[in-house]
């Protein structure tokens, strides 16, 4: 990717635009992904404005989904406006309450945030190394299947079983992630294409495996897997014996969120405090420089993608052993795609990813409430997420709308399919 864009000092001097420094793609790259520097405008203000803009556009989309009120605009605009206002307000209030309005919503938010954070880290680690990992979904599926097998095959004490399940998720995801890394390093096949294709292969593979006797729940014809053993289930954080408030159903939040946050910290440590993390970031900033510095770029690509895959696989294990307790077709939904938004929003920094993951978890949990209480479909959440990425990826848009003086220039992450 970067070989052909990696400007040497000579070329940089010829570049007419002063904003292209000799660091090659890293400066442009850092604008988009937040890799390599901290600037409060681009790291805090732009994301915030992007979220607000996305919510505003989302409100318009909700308003257009209400046909009866739309008809009213012709005859009685005032009434139509107030009705639209009520619809949108109710929806966003429900969204907010469903995310943080009480213990059960918070539990839902945390439950949903865990796999999002892990998948977001998978994308962010790729960004840090200059790789675009669209394959988090497939990596989650394969990691989840590994965790599933370990989960139902053995019966062990929980203290051993759960770490084994986690290891299974890490391993499965790492294998699925290492494939595009290896292909990229050895053959130059662009990771965007290979990870997209591997997503679908993983999806079909899971569809198939769920119909195989070994995986399928006994006595079922539909594709549902056996349940993981009780000892392999992630323990819940709240139990009937220990709960600080009145409840009708015990909130289902489990240790997945703790695992996710610890993982984020570990990834931060690896990226910013360890040699291998330095090499990851170096290869992202300047592959040629990394090569001249004696790093083995080929194996770094494989390593980065394996680590990214392992993180996503851990997210898959979270779904299987934590939230669902079994595997169903496409059991990770579109978490792997939300993860791209999340990594961009979190500026590819582990702490940012955790924050963005909590936000998206809240959107997912609140969306459920919005659907029930305000009769506004949960799919609007996905639209809002897409809008958030769009506004983040085009800082010039935000700049133009809000006249922010952020020194951001839209960035190129990839230069195409080539090598």
């Amino acid at each position, binding site marked *: 990717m970067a070989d052909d864009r990696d400007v040497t000092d000579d070329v940089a001097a010829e570049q007419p635009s002063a904003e292209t420094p000799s660091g090659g793609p890293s400066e442009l790259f850092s604008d988009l992904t937040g890799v390599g520097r901290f600037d409060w405008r681009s790291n805090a203000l732009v994301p915030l404005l992007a979220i607000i803009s996305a919510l505003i556009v989302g409100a318009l989309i909700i308003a257009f*989904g209400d046909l009866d009120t739309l008809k009213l605009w012709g005859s009685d605009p005032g009434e139509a406006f107030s009705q639209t206002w009520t619809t949108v307000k109710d929806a966003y209030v429900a969204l907010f309450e469903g995310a943080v309005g009480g213990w059960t919503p918070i539990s839902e938010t945390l439950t949903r945030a865990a796999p999002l954070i892990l998948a977001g880290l998978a994308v962010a680690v790729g960004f840090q190394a200059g790789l675009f990992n669209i394959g988090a979904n497939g990596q989650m599926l394969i990691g989840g299947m590994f965790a599933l097998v370990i989960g139902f095959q053995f019966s062990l004490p929980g203290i051993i079983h759960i770490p084994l399940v986690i290891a299974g998720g890490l391993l499965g995801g790492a294998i699925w992630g290492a494939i595009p890394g290896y292909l990229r390093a050895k053959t130059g096949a662009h990771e*965007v294409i290979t990870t*997209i294709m591997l997503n679908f292969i993983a999806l079909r593979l899971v569809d198939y495996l769920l119909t195989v006797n070994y995986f399928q729940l006994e006595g079922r014809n539909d594709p549902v897997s056996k349940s993981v053993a009780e000892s392999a289930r992630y323990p819940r954080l709240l139990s009937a014996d220990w709960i600080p408030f009145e409840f009708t159903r015990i909130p289902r939040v489990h240790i997945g969120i703790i695992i996710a946050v610890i993982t984020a910290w570990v990834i931060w440590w690896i990226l910013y405090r360890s040699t291998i993390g330095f090499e990851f970031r170096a290869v992202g900033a300047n592959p040629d420089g990394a090569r001249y510095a004696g790093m083995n770029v080929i194996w770094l690509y494989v390593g980065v993608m394996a680590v990214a895959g392992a993180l996503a696989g851990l997210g898959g294990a979270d779904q299987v052993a934590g939230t669902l307790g079994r595997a169903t077709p496409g059991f990770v939904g579109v978490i792997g795609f939300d993860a791209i938004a999340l990594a961009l929003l979190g500026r590819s920094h582990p702490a940012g990813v955790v924050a963005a993951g909590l936000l998206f978890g809240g959107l997912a949990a609140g969306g459920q409430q919005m659907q029930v209480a305000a009769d506004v479909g949960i799919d609007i959440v996905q639209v809002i997420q897409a809008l958030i990425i769009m506004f983040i*990826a085009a800082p010039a848009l935000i700049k133009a709308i809000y006249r922010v003086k952020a020194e951001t220039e*839209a960035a190129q*992450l990839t230069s195409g399919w080539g090598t």
Partner: protein
Amino acid sequence: MTTTTEHREVRTPAEVRRAKILAVVYLVLALIALVVFALGTEGSATFGLSRANDTIALPDLTISASGLGFIVTAVLAFLGAQQWMRGFGSKTNLVLALGMVLFLFAFLAWAAAGASFSLVGIFQEAIKRAVPITFGAISGVLCERTGIINIGIEGMLLAGAFTGAVAGSTLGAWPGMILAALVGGLLALLLAVLTVRYRVDQIIAGVVINIFVLGLTSFYTSQILVDNPQLNNAPIMRAWEIPLLSDIPFAGPVLFAQNVFVYAMYLLVAISAFALFRTKWGLRTRAVGEKPRAADTVGINVFRMKYLNVLIGGFVAGFGGAYFTIGSVGRFDENMTAGRGFIGLAAMIFGRWHPVGALSAALVFGFADSLQVKLGILDTPIPSEFLAMAPYLVTIVVVAGLVGRSRPPSDYAAYVKE
């Protein structure tokens, strides 16, 4: 790097290695054909070559499955040997596709041994299923030839399908198709503005379009279409038999007794192939894609060409999306494209960024798709999911250059005018 002498091309070691790997692939396929299809089965497969009411009816074709297996084994072994010794040059992918078709044919005979099976039916179905894939792939070709990656094909198809359903129900089929194309164009315009004007990363812009359209169409389906079924009941384009041509035995019903989307596909492939490689517009498009700076220097308006081509690509994808509703079932369902746009992307790569190549790849993928349905009926030991995986696997193999190499034609970096 590569020097050409008068007699033969000198190949790089990597190319030689690739050719050898491909040869091994042929030999492995030949081995499978020999062991599984030729030796592992008895009985004959009966293939129906005409429909009941065809003007010229062909007799059913009865083939001994093992006999065909032996023949295909021999052909594949020959291709393997030829590949090993001399290679097929620029026809490598074509020969590979032919080899795959033969292999599939032997596979069909093996799967259908002892049963009867309508070949007309499966080929008709294959062509239909190739339609959205081809439209998606050609949309991709048009965008990528001008230097913009279009990952958003899936979203454009889905938006076209949704618009086709709603506009088709309210305004009729033809306005529905036109509006679907326009909505595809609108999304393409978004892609173009984001990538050309704001220089957003092309892949992110495409991902945004996919997520946005999936969310938006699902949202409006649950908010509006579920309660208003009259808005989700588009008229369906019926098959229209072309006089005379549809009377040709076998090829007639397969190629010329289809609906208007299929004919539009033929036209699109012909026109885009001609336009890209034989017209001034095509030359400029490719110049802008390959060397934007040079194109700019000779006075081509790079930005206008990019906008124009991406816009046309959007029209194509939006129109192709309408196939799902107006051309097929008339009703929109959430995420009904189910990854066809990405298969279109794969077809584009497999077809080496050429409209005809894209069509060929789409036909192969469409065939795999229709086979998947038939296999469930025939009760073979091969799970249909593996056939569904095939296009994706083939694409990885092709981009990795393990077998034949598919290289992108353009310089995708955002163009900055001096």
